[in-house]
């Protein structure tokens, strides 16, 4: 036998002693090892005991005959392939068929022809090798597949932790994200802004599965951390684009849209790069569309990337719909697409409260339940009263990461002409301030304090703008024109921000002092009571005043100092408990 492997062991089952002797000699001469048995019963015993790789067996034998023994041997062998060659001079078809049905793989007829026997054994030896190789491969594939699934599950957990749902569970948001595979090419994120609004992001990566999911991780990381630090939509988009451009291979990108909702201003800032049109369904039933006017993320270099947004005023109960092309391209059994027309039709439905459900149900019904091919992502945002005052604060997103941290510190930050013109210092201020762990829960207040105090210093302190201008729409526009002019003309000016935090029992105090290089003003007659709520102007300082323990103007009016007190969750609990007792 032309092989270095140990010789194949062959079981010879034959009731005639001379035939057995002859066959054994023929097989031995071919270089194989032999085991013999005189009848079926002995054959089964020898098979169990010697574990031969192949069996040559007489079909007709006394007691347990060859066919019965063959059936038993195949049963014992299980999924291992053990070729059984029947030794027979049976000639009628029925008997031969019976041999095959009993598990026989071939026949050897008498008189024995050594050449034929050698050739047949050789054929089955090759089949055995092939079968073993296949089985080995199959087992390896099964093992590696199991390993792969295990890895996917672990990766999915990591992925879900990074690209978590954020605040998608808010009462004014409805959303659907289909779990098509372990990973999904779509990513839907939503986060609460420190200023009180909401930012939603929908991305649709080219492709599916792992390659798509990998891009979603840094994206989500950037999104959540930048939103939490108070960065604006434009900065976040720039950062995500830059990151994706850096990590995605050529030809891979992310169609995306970002919606920045301000509940206070009843406004939506929208950026759409390559996603289907966003649809606005006004409370009065009018439908508007916001088309994609940008390239997807991850294509353009930073200097060419355009993050300009479309700004839409929203009234109460106006609804914004956003989806990826999965739902549009959904196909039914006849290969037809669900299509935009069918989706848009729902927007005109009388019962606005049900539009989302109708769209989704319609899509599922169209495709035949359970047959969606692509990632099916759909979301609705409804304009409501400031959501955070209705709901509990999102403690998950804003949970404290550590109980220890910087508690007793101060810093001074000075901005000169260029920086005043170009740079938004609020994220930086928040970033430093939130090193006090428990203060994260108060980020909305802090955002308001920094935003109002700094803009007060620039707009009024340095530029001398009159906020009464903002009382009507034309004046509003004029105000911002004057502001632009003033900023361009700045020369030798400075805004100095000093922030100090120190702990007090059960909480802490944050003192923000903002000084500008302007001329100051007479603050002796300053009225910090709230103006009528409907007016756009003059709300800044009363709002700050209402949040703070104290608000003081100093020196010639160019210095303002706000003292903000906060109490820890633990302390709040104690106060509540006392109140109950």
């Amino acid at each position: 036998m032309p092989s270095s492997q140990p010789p194949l062991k062959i079981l010879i089952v034959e009731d005639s002693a001379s035939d057995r002797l002859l066959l054994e000699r023929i097989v031995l001469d071919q270089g194989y090892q032999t085991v013999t048995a005189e009848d079926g019963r002995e054959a089964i015993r020898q098979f169990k005991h010697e574990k031969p790789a192949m069996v040559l067996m007489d079909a007709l034998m006394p007691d347990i005959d060859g066919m019965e023994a063959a059936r038993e041997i195949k049963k014992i062998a299980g999924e291992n392939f053990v070729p059984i060659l029947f030794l027979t001079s049976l000639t009628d078809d029925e008997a031969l068929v019976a041999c095959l049905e009993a598990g026989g793989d071939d026949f050897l007829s008498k008189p024995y022809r050594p050449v034929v026997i050698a050739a047949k054994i050789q054929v089955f030896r090759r089949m055995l090798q092939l079968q073993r190789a296949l089985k080995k491969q199959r087992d390896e594939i099964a093992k590696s597949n199991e390993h792969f699934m295990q890895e996917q599950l672990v990766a999915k957990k990591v992925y879900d932790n990074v690209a978590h749902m954020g605040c998608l569970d808010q009462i004014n948001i409805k959303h659907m994200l289909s779990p098509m595979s372990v990973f999904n090419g779509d990513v839907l994120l939503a986060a609460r802004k420190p200023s009180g609004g909401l930012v939603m992001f929908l991305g649709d990566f080219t492709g599916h599965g792992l390659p798509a999911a990998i891009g979603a991780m840094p994206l989500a990381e950037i999104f959540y951390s930048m939103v939490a630090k108070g960065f604006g939509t434009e900065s976040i988009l720039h950062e995500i684009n830059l990151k994706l451009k850096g990590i995605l291979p050529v030809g891979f990108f992310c169609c995306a849209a970002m919606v920045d909702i301000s509940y206070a201003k009843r406004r939506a800032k929208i950026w759409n790069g390559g996603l289907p049109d966003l649809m606005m369904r006004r409370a009065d039933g009018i439908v508007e569309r916001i088309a994609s006017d940008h390239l997807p993320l991850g294509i353009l270099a930073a200097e060419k990337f355009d993050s300009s947004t479309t700004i839409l005023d929203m009234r109460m109960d106006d609804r914004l719909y956003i989806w990826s092309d999965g739902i549009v391209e959904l196909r039914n059994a006849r290969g037809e697409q669900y299509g935009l027309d069918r989706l848009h039709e729902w927007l005109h439905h009388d019962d606005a409260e049900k539009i989302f459900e109708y769209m989704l149900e319609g899509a599922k019904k169209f495709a035949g339940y359970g047959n969606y091919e692509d990632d099916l992502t759909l979301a609705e945002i409804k304009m409501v009263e400031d959501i955070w005052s209705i709901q509990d604060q999102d403690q998950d997103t804003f949970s404290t990461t550590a109980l220890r941290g910087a508690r007793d510190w101060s810093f001074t930050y000075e901005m000169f002409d260029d920086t005043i013109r170009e740079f938004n210092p609020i994220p930086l201020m928040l970033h430093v301030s939130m090193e006090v762990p428990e203060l994260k829960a108060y980020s909305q207040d802090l955002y308001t304090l920094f935003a109002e105090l700094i803009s007060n210093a620039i707009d009024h302190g340095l530029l001398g703008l009159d906020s009464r201008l903002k009382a009507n729409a034309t004046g509003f526009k004029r105000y911002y024109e004057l502001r632009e002019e003033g900023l361009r003309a700045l020369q030798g000016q400075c805004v100095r921000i000093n922030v100090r935090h120190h702990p007090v029992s059960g909480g802490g105090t944050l003192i923000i002092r903002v000084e500008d290089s302007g001329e100051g003003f007479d603050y002796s007659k300053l009225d910090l009571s709230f103006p009528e709520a409907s007016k756009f102007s003059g709300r800044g300082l009363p709002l700050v005043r209402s949040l703070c323990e104290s608000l003081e103007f100093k020196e010639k009016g160019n210095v303002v100092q706000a003292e903000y007190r906060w109490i820890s969750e633990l302390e709040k609990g104690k106060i509540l408990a006392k109140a109950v007792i």
Partner: protein
Amino acid sequence: MAILDDDTIGELRLIMEDDLPKLIDSYLNNSTKLIRELQGMAGSVQQDDFVIRIHSLKGSCRNIGALQMGDLCERMEKHARAGNFSKIKQDLEKLNSEFDLVRSALLAVD
């Protein structure tokens, strides 16, 4: 047709080499036993046992080169399968005399 096929014997000599007498011995013992058993059961009809033995004898006759005796066995096997035992009785005597010839021929092989 010759009692013993020379080509087969030649081939067996190649395969078995010095052990050819051992193979012949084994054949003769086995066949003697089988024929005795066949004669014993010719009176009482035990179809299956008869078929198995005559079938086995047929195979070993052909392997040893006793082709004429093999053909006789085949005919008897057919009769046995058909339950035609009256014909078998006549053939059993033929089988006996045929086997005598085969034995003589085989014992002459050196």
